[in-house]
């Protein structure tokens, strides 16, 4: 299932991206913080700038062009080479004395009376400026130059190594996460194909696998139930059809007898009517049985090679035999269609054609002309049955074109059967009105891909 692979790829990409983004954000924050604090002058005023602002007055005293209050220093003093104070500003009393070289060396490195101090040379001596107590912390820190070189040269490869390690673990975690998901995906594929599924329920996707197994069991049970129900329904209908045939045959037989031997014209007419209606019932029961079998695939196709011309004429001959004077049939077969050969179930297709013809006659009781046309369209056999009667009602056409059947929808079992039979032959059929009702069937003349009528 491609979806799972896509999910895993996105997961790995997202994980890698998140880690890299976090690192970059941290680096940016760290760098920004350093730059920000470095640019602020609240804690550490540039000593060089302050020191270079010292000037000697005409009287030999010293002064600064930058007032102490403009800096971050709380006091400052200028020492000569001997450690004596040449100038001072805001110097605490405890610090107002001369300093020895060791003292100068000490407070240069650390603190002077807990004051962190900054020391800088100028032309006049050594400037010592004190920062507020507790403002900065001094560390005894030094670094080997080799280490600095190694650090700088190794940063790039180190970052690459980090990226590689992150990617490796993302892939590893992704792979571990993908494995149970792939099993689940395969299970879903099998479920979609209607097969049973039995997945291992251990691991991180165990609960999902368990649910899938349950769904599979339920679907298999439902499928079996549906199959049993369909078989039972088909068998029931077949049984009922069989049981109806015998009494119907009896009725038809007696009706024929009365029709032929009866002396009273009224009785003969009634007998004829009984026979005709009984034949209708017989046909209806046969259609019901057949449509049930076709619906539940209980009637396998018995394809045989059939010559179209003789077959069509035989069907029409049988139909015309029982036709009354109000109805007539015209047949138009093209030469190519007359010689065409179809591989079809002769009995079923005969039934389909008969249903179309009977439908035209029955729904035009006052009479009509039924035209049967057969022609070849390339490799496709096209058969149309058209009458010049009332045509198909709109409600019937709706149902035939696939609209949902409602309680008040017309019962069109015969036409449904035509649809089923043609579908079983991988052909197509359509119904429409054109100066009457028209039904068109298209079938392949050879065993190849089925053709479809334009809708």
């Amino acid at each position, binding site marked *: 299932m491609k979806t799972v692979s896509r999910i895993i790829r996105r997961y790995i990409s997202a994980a890698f991206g998140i880690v890299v983004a976090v690192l970059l954000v941290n680096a940016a924050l760290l760098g920004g913080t350093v730059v920000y604090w470095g640019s602020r002058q609240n804690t550490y005023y540039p000593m060089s700038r302050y020191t270079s602002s010292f000037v000697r007055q005409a009287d030999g005293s010293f002064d600064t062009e930058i007032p102490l209050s403009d800096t971050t220093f709380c006091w400052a003093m200028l020492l000569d080479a001997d450690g004596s104070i040449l100038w001072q500003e805001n110097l605490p009393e405890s610090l107002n004395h001369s300093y020895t070289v060791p003292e100068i060396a000490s407070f240069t490195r650390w603190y002077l009376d807990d004051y962190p101090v900054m020391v800088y040379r100028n032309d006049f001596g050594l400037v010592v400026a004190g920062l507020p107590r507790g403002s900065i912390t001094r560390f005894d820190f030094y670094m080997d130059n080799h280490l600095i070189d190694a650090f700088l040269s190794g940063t790039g490869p180190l970052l690459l190594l980090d990226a590689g390690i992150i990617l490796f673990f993302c892939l590893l975690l992704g792979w571990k996460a993908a494995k149970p998901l792939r099993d689940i995906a395969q299970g879903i594929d099998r479920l979609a194909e209607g097969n049973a599924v039995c997945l291992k329920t251990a691991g991180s996707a165990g609960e999902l696998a368990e649910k899938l197994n349950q769904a599979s069991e339920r679907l298999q049970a439902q499928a079996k139930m549906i199959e049993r129900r369909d078989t039972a329904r088909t068998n029931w209908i077949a049984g009922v059809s069989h049981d109806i045939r015998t009494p119907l045959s009896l009725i038809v037989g007696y009706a024929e007898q009365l029709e032929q031997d009866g002396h009273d014209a009224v009785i003969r007419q009634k007998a004829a009517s009984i026979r005709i209606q009984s034949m209708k019932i017989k046909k209806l029961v046969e259609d019901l049985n057949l449509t049930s079998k076709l619906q539940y695939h209980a009637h396998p196709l018995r394809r045989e090679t059939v010559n179209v*011309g*003789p077959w069509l*004429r*035989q069907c*029409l*001959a*049988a139909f*015309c*035999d029982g036709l009354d004077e109000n109805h007539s*049939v*015209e*047949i*138009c*077969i093209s030469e190519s269609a007359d*010689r065409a050969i179809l591989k079809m179930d002769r009995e079923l297709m005969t039934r389909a054609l008969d249903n179309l013809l009977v439908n035209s006659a029955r729904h035009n009781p006052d009479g009509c002309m039924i035209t049967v046309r057969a022609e070849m369209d390339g490799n496709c056999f096209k058969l149309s049955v058209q009458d010049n009667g009332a045509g198909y009602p709109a409600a019937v056409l709706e149902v035939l074109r696939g609209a949902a059947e409602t309680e008040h929808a017309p019962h069109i079992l015969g036409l449904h059967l035509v649809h089923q039979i043609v579908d079983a032959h991988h052909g197509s059929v359509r119904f429409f009105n054109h100066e009457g009702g028209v039904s068109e069937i298209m079938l392949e003349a050879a065993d190849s891909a089925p053709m479809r009528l334009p809708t």
Partner: protein
Amino acid sequence: MHRDECTLPLTATERTILQRLTDARGHIVTYDALCQAVWGSGYYGYENSLNVHIRHLREKIEADPSKPVWLQTVRGIGYRLRKEASQ
């Protein structure tokens, strides 16, 4: 064949055709069935010959061959022998 107390000779083909129609008296027999009865399974192309034999038969059994009463044509399908003609 007897008609009006006359005996009319039929050719073998005419006899076969008439026999086939008589066997299915009252019902339509297709061109194909008639041709097959006479010429067997390879009967394609013999429809015109069949028409000729039908015409000859009508000349023998119909009062007015151009307006057949007994041996009826069902256009495009075949022929039908009316039931009473089986006598």
